[in-house]
């Protein structure tokens, strides 16, 4: 790890100012992805801009009453999402997903904003965000989940853009099924299934270079929300990772099994 300047701005605007025009500056949230990268010397930022002192980023609230969206601040930790009575009551599938991220240490530090900004292809939250049709709220705009993930560790965020919150429409039902890597605990395959006002949405993480939707299964489930639909679904081979520890055939199979288990958990 190299030396860096450490900043603790008090507002989002100050944080943006610190990032502007400085390619070598990095935001720091829970540090659970960034610090390992720094320790391995894979990145050498000149400045770290901590979000810790900015008020308002740690809230979980429901907007617009009982039927309104659930809004989770960018700095809310995985453990806080997992144990929040509000999340558990309104989107239990999301709380359960957060409770299955990494291990206790990771969940105590890692944040939803950090996870989405990092956009690890094997991370869990991307599946929730995409399946629930959530919106990523930043310091300057709102980005629909469908437009947010652009590639391997790539998102629609600008270099100096800061996620402030994630807005989740509350689904009728949702559930996540994960096949964790035995060593890292990241998702080899994770499938989130959501029955929403706008139809059924299914998102797959881990199996590809980025999270993707399984539209064929979405259609089948819209017609008949039954777990048997999962085994009939072909996973487009182009969506699957190659050259990793798991073969594409096994990944495709796991997608089917995890989809089935997620659907069963919804019922």
């Amino acid at each position, binding site marked *: 790890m190299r030396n860096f300047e450490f900043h603790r701005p008090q507002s989002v605007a100050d944080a943006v100012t610190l990032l502007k025009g400085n390619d070598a500056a990095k935001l720091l949230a829970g540090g659970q992805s960034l610090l390992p990268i720094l320790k*391995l010397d894979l990145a050498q930022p000149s400045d770290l801009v901590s979000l810790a002192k900015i008020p308002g980023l740690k809230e979980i609230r429901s907007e617009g009453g009982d039927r309104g969206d659930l809004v989770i601040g960018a700095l809310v930790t995985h453990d806080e999402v997992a144990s929040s009575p509000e999340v558990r009551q309104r989107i239990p599938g999301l709380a359960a997903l957060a409770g299955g991220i990494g291990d206790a240490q990771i969940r105590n530090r890692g944040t939803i904003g950090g996870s989405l900004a990092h956009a690890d292809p094997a991370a869990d939250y991307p599946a929730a965000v995409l399946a629930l049709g959530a919106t990523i709220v930043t310091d300057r705009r709102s980005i629909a989940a469908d437009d947010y993930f652009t590639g391997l560790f790539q998102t629609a965020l600008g270099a100096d853009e800061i996620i402030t919150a994630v807005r989740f429409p509350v689904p009728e039902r949702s559930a996540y099924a994960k*096949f964790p890597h*035995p*060593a*890292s605990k990241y998702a080899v395959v994770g499938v989130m299934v959501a029955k929403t006002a706008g139809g059924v949405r299914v998102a797959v993480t881990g199996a590809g270079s980025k999270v993707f939707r399984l539209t064929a299964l979405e259609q089948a489930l819209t017609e008949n929300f039954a777990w048997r639909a999962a085994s009939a679904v072909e996973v487009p081979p182009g969506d699957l990772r190659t050259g990793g520890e798991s073969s594409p*055939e096994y990944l495709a199979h796991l997608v089917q099994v995890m989809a089935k288990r997620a659907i069963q958990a919804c019922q």
Partner: protein
Amino acid sequence: MSDQGLGASVARKEDRRFLLGKGRYTDDVTLPNQSYAVFVRSPHANAAIRSIDARQALAAPGVLAVLTGEDAAADDLGGIPCGWTITSKDGSKMVAPPHPALVKGKARHTGDPVAMVIAETRAQAKDAAQLVEVDYDPQPAVAHLNAAVANGAPQVWDEAPGNVCFDWHLGDAAATDAEFAKAERVVAIDLTNNRVAPNAIEPRAANGYYDDVEDRYTLYTTSQNPHLTRLLLAAYTLKVPEQKLRVVAPDVGGGFGSKIFHYAEELLVLWASKKVGHPVKWTSDRSEAFLSDAHGRDHVTHAELALTADGKFRALSVRTLANMGAYLSTFAPAIPTYLHATLLSGPYVIPAIYAEVKAIFTHTVPVDAVRGAGRPEATYLLERLVDKAARELGIDRVEIRRKNLIQPDQFPYQTPVALQYDVGDYPATLDMALQAIDYGKFAERKAESEQRGKLRGFGISTYIEACGIAPSALVGALGAGAGLYEAATVRVHPTGSVTVFTGSHSHGQGHETTFAQLVNERLGIPIENIEIVHGDTDRIPFGMGTYGSRSAAVGGSAIYKAVDKIVDKGKKIAAHLLEANVADVEFEDGKYRVAGTDREKTFGEVAFTAYVPHNYPIDTVEPGLEDSAFYDPKNFTFPGGCHLVEVEVDPETGVVEVVDVAIADDVGVIINPMIVDGQAHGGLAHGIGQALLEECVYDTEGQLLSGSFMSYTMPRAADLPSFKVGNHVTACTHNPTGIKGVGEVGAIGVPPAVINAVLDALAPLGVTHLDMPATPEKVWRAIQAAQGGAA
């Protein structure tokens, strides 16, 4: 029995400092004017080195030196020696290629050290290491055994055609052939034993210091055997006489074999310290550990068992390829030979055995002893083969073992593969384990699992192992370059407290407690008043260290012998004080007593008299109470037992869950049952890790793909059930303690039980074979293949 002696589960004395984070490890030692070394390691598995340009690195801030293989050669540094020579079938000696501490001209595995950068801080050394420009000419490499022995394979060493290091055999080929020729049944198996990384929690580290006033070197290092390291430094690598060398292995955070060996870094920090005039410290990080700690296992084996139609074993024939890696590590050649083939009789009567072992060079990290070292490989192939035989002959798996076990009245039992087992009771441990797991109700449990969509399997392994290594004359005759006795000095202080200086080394085993219990057992002194000193060649007698589950059996016996001498001398002193004949004085419960009377002197009184010899038999007895012993074992010791495993397989995903483990071991006399259980638990975790999770994966270019804990899966508590651990004791007959050894039994016995259980679970689906580790994808593929699927 005192409440702290043999059989007492006293809490470990050393745990206070470990639990408070106050252990003192090699990396905690920082000396005045400390400097730091970082190694530039080859990113290629096989590459010629055209040139090394260190100019930029030398100009970087804080850099004191950049040293290369040329510098080492110019200073006549010795290569890293191999301590065991194997003689091939044809009488030729094994090929022992040079093993320079820093490579010259050619790198032969990813991680091979190419240059050493020394700077005032570790960060500066790290930065500067990136500035060393090495011009590599990468060449085709070979990492896997079958590829390495194929025609036209890349050659690791010109002097080892076909990559063969040695081609060795053991046993009676003719007798074995004859049995096979007339065999009623023959069962064959092909399997691999997966390569594993040792992964001690504390990575290796070395801090070397040359004192130019005293003209003396001090090395702090993560070693299981500091005297062996000093010997090799003195005789082969640094070439400095022993009295000019001090090697200290302070607290060491686990070894599992990997810290037995003399590594290049230990030599290089000493050498560099003299060159730069500062102490030089190197600490491996985890990624570096994967590329530089000796790995373990990595065998490919074909084996055949000849049986009678009713399942009696008649003969065993084994052909093994053993991966040595690119260089020969300190004990590497002994592992697949004398610690493997000699174990092939297992706990069974097998009238004829013949084993051939070919050791093969590849462009990979050297392979040497890892917990169990050869014995897990032998047990694995034998227990897999026995299970397969049971299945093919339609005999119950428990019954086929019962039928062939050596019976208690057959000891001493001479195997056809050199070893003579002194004692054991294998049927007893088999029964004990079966009872612990409630074998009779397995079918009910299987049905219950099935209701949850899980396939349940039962797996068994009956095993023996050889530890307490080893008679020096025997290992010498087999090619060892060292003796394998152990040494102890017992110093009784004037007020009756005791310090023991032992050649064994504790790196997690709990010697500070168990050795004190041994002394307590004999002298009756509370363990709080007994200190165990180990790990510093300036303080301890020349001893061989800790590995092969030898410390209690060999090191403990040395302590017993030294204590015997103390007790005897004390008798003479006590006789004088009690005005009795020496022959009439007995020692019991910490007291010298004139037999048949109540006249007695405590051990403390006698000790005091020895140091304040006013009223003393000064003409015949020297003052003081201190003695030493070297104990050379008469034979190996032979722990054994039975390991049972139940698994549940999720047929949809291939995930295997170990749901029950019951073991019954015979590890000889037990000093501290709690520590014995702990050793069994650790060994089981290790063995289950090898069976299901762990593997060093090399690609065909020799790149290590599983080089971090994000991909190399270590077993964790959540991967394991609660273990049922039982012991049935038969005392070792040839050492004074009766102890056999416990450090490795878990890692030896359990892997085949796990795989046998998985295969039992999958048998209804038609799966008949799996190699370790049984990862979910591998299991899923086996199911697909058996069901005629695409996989």
